[in-house]
């Protein structure tokens, strides 16, 4: 069994003292000064000849310095199903797009993309359930999968999560699971080509469908596309130099039912369709061994509604950064964020992130 422990610490300053307004990710910097937003204990290995098991537990300090423990992932993965099938069962990050299933230590930036915070909440889209995947027998890589998971709890943000009143500003309604469509269903297809011997392209399309809690029969639909391209020198030294480009674009159609306003129980909000969209693109340049320069642009906005919500407003963020990896087991990252929230103002933030890894040698998916 592999046992690994990875710790992330952030230090920095922002022109706004209200960091929650600009950094909504649970593993993003939380305060001016120092934050330890994510330390992760990972256990993984073969359960028996038929299953692989993964357990991931997060320990973190919140903005008040209180310790939090999060049962992030715990699942088994089949190793020998016939017909190129593979089943995942347990609690896991739903394989929607590129970054959602990744843990913070694999991210190329200090914070999570704005659009992912808006669509999937602070913790990303993860829940309890099953995921069935099929490696399609095409000459090139094509994988298609579908996840069926619970649509409730805080990590099913655009669905039956209590926190989703941030989206519709109404009082959430309790809904029962009566049929399969009350579950969160997320299909995905991904395909990849080696464009040349040194260049690889990976493209994907994902969707997530499920009930939301703005009303007794309201539903949410999220659709996204993602792409990743990487060039690596044929004589790369420890994987450098390389250039990679990653982007995701998501649209959400949130059916908001007629509901009582959370802020004032005498106010009733009209039923309407809330359409949101957002995207990000990030360019990484591995200049020389263990030095990576990055540039990310984030865009997000929501269509006008009869109520006002800061959370759905226009947002532009530009983040250049520089990461130095002293070895494969540690990293130091410097990042500047220019944040434009339209009428809410512009902010500047500067962050330093440090990471260390103990135990099992990390291996990375493409």
């Amino acid at each position, binding site marked *: 069994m592999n046992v690994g422990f990875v710790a992330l610490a952030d230090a920095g300053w922002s022109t706004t003292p209200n960091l929650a307004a600009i950094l909504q990710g649970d593993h993003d910097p939380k305060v001016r000064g120092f934050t330890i937003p994510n330390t992760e204990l990972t256990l993984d290995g073969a359960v028996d000849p038929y299953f692989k098991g993964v357990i991931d537990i997060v320990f973190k300090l919140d903005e008040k310095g209180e310790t939090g423990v999060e049962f992030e992932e715990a699942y088994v993965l089949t*190793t020998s199903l016939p017909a190129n099938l593979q089943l995942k069962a347990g609690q896991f990050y739903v394989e929607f797009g590129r970054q959602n299933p990744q843990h913070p230590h694999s991210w190329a930036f200090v914070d999570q993309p704005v659009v992912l915070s808006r669509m999937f909440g602070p913790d990303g889209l993860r829940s309890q359930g099953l995921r069935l995947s099929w490696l399609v027998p095409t000459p090139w890589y094509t994988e298609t999968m579908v996840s069926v998971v619970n649509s409730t709890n805080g990590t099913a943000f655009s669905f039956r999560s209590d926190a989703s009143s941030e989206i519709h500003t109404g009082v959430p309604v309790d809904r029962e699971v009566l049929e399969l469509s009350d579950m969160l269903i997320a299909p995905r297809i991904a395909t990849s*080509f*080696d464009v040349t011997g040194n260049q690889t392209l990976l493209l994907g399309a994902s969707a997530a469908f499920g009930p939301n809690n703005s009303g007794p029969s309201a539903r949410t639909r999220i659709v996204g596309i993602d792409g990743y391209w990487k060039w690596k020198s044929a004589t790369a030294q420890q*994987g450098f130099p390389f250039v990679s480009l990653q982007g995701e674009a998501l649209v959400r159609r949130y059916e908001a039912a007629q509901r009582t306003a959370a802020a004032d129980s005498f106010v009733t909000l009209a039923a309407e369709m809330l359409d949101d969209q957002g995207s990000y693109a990030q360019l990484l340049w591995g200049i020389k*061994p263990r030095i990576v320069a990055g540039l990310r642009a984030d865009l997000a906005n929501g269509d006008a509604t009869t109520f006002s919500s800061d959370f759905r407003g226009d947002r532009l963020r530009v983040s250049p950064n520089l990461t130095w990896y002293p*070895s*494969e087991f540690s990293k130091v990252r410097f990042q500047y964020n220019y944040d434009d929230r339209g009428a809410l103002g512009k902010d500047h933030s500067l962050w330093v992130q440090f990471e260390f890894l103990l135990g099992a*040698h990390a291996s990375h998916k493409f």
Partner: protein
Amino acid sequence: MTNRFAVRAATIALVALPVLGASIAAKLRVVATTPDLASLAREIGGDAVDVLALAKPTEDPHFVDAKPSHIVTLNRADVLIEGGAELELGWLPPLLESSRNSKIAAGAPGRIVASLGVHMLETPATFDRSKGDVHSLGNPHFMIDPVNVKIIAADIAGHFAQVQPASAALFRANLEKFNTKLDVKFAEWQKQLAPFRGARIVTYHKDFVYLAERFQLEVVETLEPKPGIAPSPSHLARVIEAMKAKSARVILVQPYQNRKTAETVARQTGAVVVDISQQPGARPDTKTYFDMMDYMVTSLAAALGTLK
């Protein structure tokens, strides 16, 4: 007439295609993580195998990208040959997880771990990363010792025979042929390097210890202060001092290592930088394991010879 021809052609096709298909399908699909292991697989498997290597000849075997195309290659493999000893630890596990191929699962006859039969050097007594990215199972760059290669070739032949018993005799015969050739070449390489017994060399990474041990060379220093740790100016100053003190004037560099660092050190010590590779295909006309070793031994002997 045309009709009769068409019927005949169709009949031939119907009869011939499955036969042709069977003979193609009967070939073992072998995937090796690195080109040196792939070359061995070709020597042992002959016409009964189709061999693919995941890493490119010029690629650092520690840092291969876990590209999705490798998932497809592994999904369709009958046999996987890996170096082992944590050489591929950073990229092979996620590929295997996604490939969902029980034929090459750990412990299956279709899974060959080359390091298992080899006498490993530099196995650390304690595991401590302050000493760099040391592999807990020992130094994984063992393919440049022909004695190890003989052990690995026998292991490959054994596994091939288990997976495809019908070709067992062919694999045995190819192994014998390979061993005979290896004995001849090994004697040649020993003869070529015999005049340089005890010669002092410098390498970039700790990747020539097996060659040094087998051919009695002395690795004075490595340009990396510790495995996987980038050379620092203070460390290079120490290397230069040691090279001068011990008259070490040959620096071995592989394609994926920093030649400029080696050149800087060479300029200050009067040493020569020798471009070699442990992977067939990385240097000109080195298609097979034998070509690669020929190139390595000849280049090394030439460099050491000019210094005499």
